[in-house]
Structures are given as structure tokens and as C-alpha cells.
């Protein structure tokens, strides 16, 4: 779980796959890579079986660039589309059962704090709207109320995309889906409001229309979760299959939805703000 563990024992290089060698030599470890450098360094995400043109994949790819220390991070996910790509990263991934992702993350984070007192280990939960807002709802809320220090990222595609298009709590009212032929009859859940009520230190809502912003929001969320308290990112990652969006139009749709109802929003507590400022001042002092 650190850069040392990833590097190859001398003499064994010829037995390792090309992809692994590239990752060790040209990966994002040790130095924070920028979004503008993408295409020039080996990413922690490998080939994956997600659909062509999936906005969720784009978001996951950008998230992996945003992670401040990929070698000190553990990802937790659950059933859903997201894990198809998350399992193809060179970051330890725990496949939580449906409903317990945030409970697993709570225990893991506490355990890591005991085991690695001198290292900052980041725990990031990344699951869909079904895994976090419907089935995992109570574990999510309780982890927030307990002020557990890890990041929760919701990949909100507003549908159960992996199982054929059932409505989820995060589906918009009136949305017509294969398994909701009359349209959804209830409002979209206000997870941002719930996060605010339960005292989450950093809350962000965004779409993957601005890669640099995605990476910086993820970085901020992970850094705040290290020291201050729980953080939550809600990202619109459309399902182009269930919502029948032609793949060349995926980002146009994201821009549309962003303009209509999913604009960028950031809610940050005073304590978290002070912590971020202190990091900035420390960085400037170093220079």
C-alpha cells in the first residue's frame, strides 16, 4: 500500500507484464500529476469493460488523476457500473456488499489510522446512486453523523443502469425508463441537503464537463477527509444506454443538464476552509 510495494523486486522485471512495468516507471506516483498532462503519463486506470462513451468512465478516469496519493488510497465500491472500471485500477479495491460500503469504509479508516500512525491513508467510497442513496442509505447517513473521515463519491446516473433501467431514489420525477414505464412518481432525493444537515465538511455537486475542476474537487475532498471530517461529491454521470443518449452527444447532454439543474456547487465548512488555506500557505512557504 505504498510506492515501495508497487515497485518490482530487482531481477524480476522480465517476468512482469508491460503494463505493470509502464505503471511503475511512468505512473503518477510520487508527484501529483495534472489533468493537462493526461496522455503523457501512464494512468492507474487500465482497460475496462464499461460501455463506449460512458460519462461515468470519464468521471472515474478524472477522479484517478485527482487522487492526491494513489499509492496510499483504498477504494470501496459495490455492485453497479462503477466497479467495472474501479476494479481495473492499480489501487486496492474492496467490493463491499450492497448497503455496507460506508460501514466497511468506517472500520477500514479507523483500522488504518491505528496500523499506520505516521502515514496518511485515504479511503474513498465510490458507488452509484443505487448503492449510496437507496440500498446503502442508512450506512451513508450514519457514517456522516459519526463524522467518519473518508470521502464518499456518488456516481449519479439517475437509474439502475446495470440491471436494466429501474428507477432509483435519485431519478428525476417523471423520467420514463424501461422498468418505470409510467414515469417516476416521486421527487429526486436531495442528498446535498441531507449531507448539509448531517454536518459533512465538504460537499460538491458537479458534472464531468470540466476535467480540471473534477480533479481539483476530488483532491480537495480527499485532503479534507484526511484531517477534518466526512466529504461528499455528487457527480452527474449520465447512462447513455438507459437514457438513450447517442455517444457523441454524451457531453452535450452533460452540459445541458448542468445548465438546467446540476450546476457546480460547493459547500465547505469553516474548519475545512481553514485547513485548505493552511495547506496552501505551507505550499507557498516551501517555494
Amino acid at each position, binding site marked *: 500500500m505504498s510506492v515501495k510495494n508497487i515497485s518490482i523486486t530487482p531481477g524480476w522485471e522480465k517476468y512482469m507484464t508491460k503494463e505493470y512495468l509502464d505503471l511503475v516507471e511512468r505512473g503518477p506516483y510520487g508527484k501529483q500529476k495534472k489533468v493537462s498532462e493526461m*496522455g503523457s503519463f*501512464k494512468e492507474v486506470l487500465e*482497460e*475496462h469493460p464499461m460501455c463506449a462513451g*460512458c460519462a461515468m468512465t470519464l468521471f472515474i478516469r478524472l477522479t484517478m488523476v485527482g487522487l492526491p496519493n494513489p499509492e496510499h488510497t483504498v477504494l470501496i465500491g459495490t455492485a453497479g457500473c462503477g466497479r467495472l472500471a474501479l476494479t481495473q485500477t492499480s489501487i486496492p479495491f474492496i467490493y463491499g456488499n450492497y448497503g455496507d460500503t460506508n460501514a466497511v469504509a468506517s472500520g477500514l479508516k479507523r483500522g488504518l489510522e491505528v496500523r499506520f500512525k505516521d502515514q496518511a491513508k485515504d479511503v474513498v467510497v465510490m458507488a452509484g446512486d443505487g448503492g449510496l442513496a437507496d440500498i446503502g442509505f442508512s450506512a451513508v447517513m450514519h457514517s456522516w453523523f459519526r463524522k467518519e473521515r473518508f470521502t464518499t463519491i456518488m456516481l449519479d446516473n439517475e437509474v439502475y443502469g446495470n440491471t436494466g433501467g429501474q428507477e432509483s431514489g435519485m431519478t428525476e420525477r417523471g423520467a420514463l425508463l424501461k422498468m418505470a414505464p409510467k414515469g417516476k412518481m416521486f421527487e429526486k432525493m436531495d442528498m446535498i441537503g441531507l449531507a448539509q444537515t448531517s454536518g459533512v465538511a465538504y460537499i460538491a455537486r458537479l458534472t464531468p464537463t470540466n476535467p480540471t475542476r473534477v480533479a481539483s474537487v476530488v483532491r480537495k475532498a480527499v485532503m479534507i477527509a484526511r484531517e477534518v471530517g466526512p466529504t461528499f461529491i455528487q457527480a452527474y454521470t449520465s447512462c447513455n444506454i438507459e437514457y438513450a443518449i447517442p*455517444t*457523441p452527444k454524451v457531453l452535450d447532454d452533460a452540459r445541458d443538464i448542468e445548465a438546467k439543474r446540476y450546476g457546480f456547487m460547493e459547500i465547505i465548512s469553516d474548519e475545512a476552509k481553514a485547513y485548505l488555506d493552511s495547506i496552501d500557505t505551507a505550499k507557498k512557504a516551501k517555494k
Partner: protein
Amino acid sequence: MYLVAHIDQAICSETACRLCTQYCPEANTILYDNAAKTAFVAVDRCKGCEICVGICDDLAKHKAIKMIMITDLKSPFELSKEGFRPEKWDGTHP
């Protein structure tokens, strides 16, 4: 047969926008050749979603990316064969 993205390097090397490398949903698929200052596609990873075409046409306004049949490529770059070796990239990739 299927379509893959193809970048016109003459147009791309005139600019330094790198937007397609950031918006492609697949990791390490649109690569950036720092020597020739141009992006190019690893065809074995391209799923043909055309997001990069929209980005290059509408956002960057360079119109350098087109979808073409994979059989029409003369010497396609495959990441699984060549590996990720930026020091070897010299603008000779199609």
C-alpha cells in the same frame, strides 16, 4: 469492421490544446507525443464513442479528428504491442 478515431497530425501539431486527451473516457487511449506536439490514438483501446470528435469540432474548433475504418489505417498504433514508451514517440505514428 469498425470505426476508430483518427487524428490529423498536421492540424493537431499546430495547436497545443490537448483537450481530447482529457475528455476521452478510456484511459491512455488518446496519447500525447511531446516531441511532435500532437495527439494520437491507441487504436486497440478506442471504443469508437466519438466524444473526441465532438470535443475537437465544437469545443476546440480544430476539426482534426475523424472516425475512420480500422482497416484503412496504414500502420495503426497499438498500446498492447508497443507499451507506454513516450521516449520512443517521434511523430511517426499515423
